[in-house]
């Protein structure tokens, strides 16, 4: 009897359970939130943005030790060790890059990591509750700026590249979007991102506390550089691109807080004590002096054995090798030469090394934990780009006046006065070459030279330019290896292998 009651009671309660609210049993695991649900508060978004900056900072991305992928590709610096494991990074400056080079893959992956993090923020920011609409716009602007910055690197280094603007969650999404998008469309996306980023309340120039974040001056400067690059790459819309470049670069120039460049001594730009107050710096990656994790090691790493000019750290070997080709390019009486390079006489060195980045303070100490910020954009760069734009537009007077502003700060005669110098005239017969020369000595070792070369020359001219150099002044890397293929990097081997059609390999590899 009793059993029957219990039986029916259980049956009844089961029935009611299944007929009531159907998501009573639906729970979310608080320990593993789906990525799409993570951004909830403004703090979450701020952290996501910090994640993008962190990706940019990586030494395989755009950090201070990423010079292998940009500066060491050019005729400024390079490596002399071509043996054993060092043979792999050596390929970059030797122009014998193999698609299976693991450093190449690391760089490619690090760049796309930054893109992916920016896409994550931009895809899911609407789910977060941000009360201040201006703040929300600022986060979006910064993420878009960083994404554009990285795509600008990708498109110049590889040409057509996969273009992703949303965060992918499924394998099908990834597969659908893995194909090399045409350069023109990538540039269009970069322009769209940067123009969008301008429409925000970011400050013109960041204050001391905000250093490391982007600013309107940085966005304008980058936008100008993108238009300028497009003008030299593509025949169509050339005039329009030049006009836009001029507009944005001038906007950036107007936002400066100093008068003329000569008010800022060259050494001040790289002085660790002045890094947060120097008005010439527009956008930088901040490094923390004395910190074992976030300090800069560029000063110590550049220093040759037996030298003390860069850092208190006892260094070995030759430091960062500077090609004699660059050393010979500095003009006499140019203050930038003695500031940027030095010859190391030590038996284990006997070569020129970089002295542009120094931190000999006690705070950095003998471990070389320097505080040097890594400068990604500064006004000398913008001014010389303005000279370049005006040269293309035919405004020679404007162009030379910008050029002279930089030369005056370096303590050397103006462009007009140099026309009487036979050596200068023979090396740089045109204004174009004079500007290229000025960029080389002003911005040496700042990851600009390779992009300058790509902008000033097309692939045929570049081959001629490199072949004309003297091998003796070049180091161990072989100039004879330079060919048309070296205008671009190869697509990493396993990326190409995954889909040889849609991720087709660059010519010559």
């Amino acid at each position, binding site marked *: 009897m009793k059993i029957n009651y219990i039986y029916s009671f259980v049956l009844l309660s089961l029935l009611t359970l299944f007929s009531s609210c159907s998501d009573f049993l639906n729970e979310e695991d608080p320990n593993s939130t789906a990525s799409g649900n993570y951004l909830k508060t403004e703090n979450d978004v701020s952290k996501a943005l910090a994640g993008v900056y962190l990706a940019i900072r990586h030494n395989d991305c755009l950090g201070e030790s990423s010079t292998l992928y940009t500066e060491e590709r050019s005729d400024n610096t390079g490596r002399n060790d071509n*043996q054993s494991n060092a043979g792999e990074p050596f390929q970059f400056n030797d122009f014998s890059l193999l698609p299976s080079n693991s450093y190449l893959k690391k760089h490619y992956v690090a760049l796309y990591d930054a893109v992916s993090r920016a896409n994550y923020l931009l895809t899911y920011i609407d789910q977060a509750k941000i009360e201040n609409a201006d703040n929300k716009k600022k986060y979006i602007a910064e993420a878009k700026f960083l994404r554009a910055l990285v795509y600008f690197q990708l498109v110049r280094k590889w040409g057509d590249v996969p273009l992703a603007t949303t965060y992918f969650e499924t394998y099908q999404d990834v597969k659908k979007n893995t194909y090399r998008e045409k350069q023109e469309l990538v540039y269009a996306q970069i322009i769209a991102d940067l123009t969008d980023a301008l429409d925000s309340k970011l400050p013109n120039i960041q204050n001391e506390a905000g250093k490391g974040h982007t600013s309107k001056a940085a966005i304008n400067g980058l936008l100008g550089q993108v238009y300028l690059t497009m003008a030299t790459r593509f025949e169509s819309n050339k005039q329009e691109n030049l006009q836009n470049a001029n507009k944005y670069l001038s906007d950036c120039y107007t936002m400066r807080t100093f008068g003329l460049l000569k008010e800022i001594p060259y050494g001040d730009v790289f002085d660790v004590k002045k890094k947060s107050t120097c008005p010439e710096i527009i956008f930088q990656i901040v490094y923390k002096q004395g910190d074992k994790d976030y300090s800069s090691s560029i000063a110590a790493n550049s220093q040759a054995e037996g030298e003390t000019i860069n850092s208190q750290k006892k260094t070995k070997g030759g430091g960062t090798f500077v090609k004699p080709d660059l050393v010979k390019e500095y003009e006499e009486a140019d203050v930038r030469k003695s500031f940027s390079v030095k010859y190391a006489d030590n038996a284990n060195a006997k070569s020129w090394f970089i002295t542009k980045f120094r931190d000999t303070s006690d705070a950095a100490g003998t471990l070389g934990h320097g505080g040097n910020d890594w400068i990604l954009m500064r006004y000398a760069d913008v001014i010389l780009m303005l000279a370049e734009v005006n040269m293309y537009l035919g405004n020679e007077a404007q162009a030379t006046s910008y050029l002279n502003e930089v030369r005056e700060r370096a303590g050397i005669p103006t462009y007009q006065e140099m026309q009487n110098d036979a050596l200068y005239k023979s090396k740089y017969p045109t204004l174009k070459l004079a500007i290229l020369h000025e960029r080389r000595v002003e911005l040496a070792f700042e990851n600009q030279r390779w992009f300058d070369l790509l902008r000033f020359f097309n692939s045929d001219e570049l081959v001629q330019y490199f072949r004309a150099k003297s091998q003796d002044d070049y180091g161990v890397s072989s100039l004879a290896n330079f060919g048309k293929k070296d205008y671009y990097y190869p697509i990493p081997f396993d990326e190409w292998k995954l889909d040889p059609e849609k991720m087709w390999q660059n010519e010559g590899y």
Partner: protein
Amino acid sequence: MGGASTIITNGAERSYKTHITMEGQPIGMFYGFKVKGMVTEADMANIAKDDKFYNAATQSFPEGYKLQGPARSTASTTKLAPGDLYFEDTNNDGVVNDEDKAIIGSPHPDFTFGFMLSARYKTWDIRTAFNGSVGNEILDGQDYYIFNMEGSGNQYSVVNDRYRNAQNPGNGEIYRAARGSTQSNSTRLSTFYLQDGSYLRCTNITVGYAFPSIAKITRNNIANLRLYASANNLFTITNYLGYNPDVDYNNGANLTPGVDYGKYPLAKSYNFGVQVTF
């Protein structure tokens, strides 16, 4: 796996690629270059002839050019010299590059086996157990350091048989010692670093002696007394130079089997025992 889904992974030191997983092949096959031979003094003249036609900028020879000397590797940053190994140019374009990489070995054995043998003779008995595997190849991840002929650390003793000069060519397989020699460039895997992982291992031998008339001696208090001695992992017959040819899936990385990263070797153990039946 559908369409173009070839996966190339690195299973050993640094990041150089060692395994490939592709349609039509087992998972995780070794992927790299095949060693074709060693450069001799006689080859140098032919290499010089090829140099004249070699275009360093495009890393290629003119169309239809017939190669005189051994094919050069584009991953090598130093010139071919006597005593260097050269690789097979599978597509015959005169240079050895990523396109000449092929499947060069299989980490999967043709078969694994095991057997037991036991015998008894009067009062003695012996039981043995063996196991083994045949046909698999192993990449020893530590060879990157101890078989690189670079002078950066201790090397296998077989390095004594390396090429020294034309008068001392060694055993013809181990290349010359040099930091910049073709092999020590960490960008590629070749058959030089693959070893045969076949082995026969005696996992257990037990020998026992049963006292014959123990029952009589102890007046049926002890029915049987047997002494035995056994050894575990007594010996392994293998050509493999590393610790233990029974390598696993490299700590669970399914796409890179057959890599030995110095898995702790098996210990021999010896046991003695007495078996008493009352």
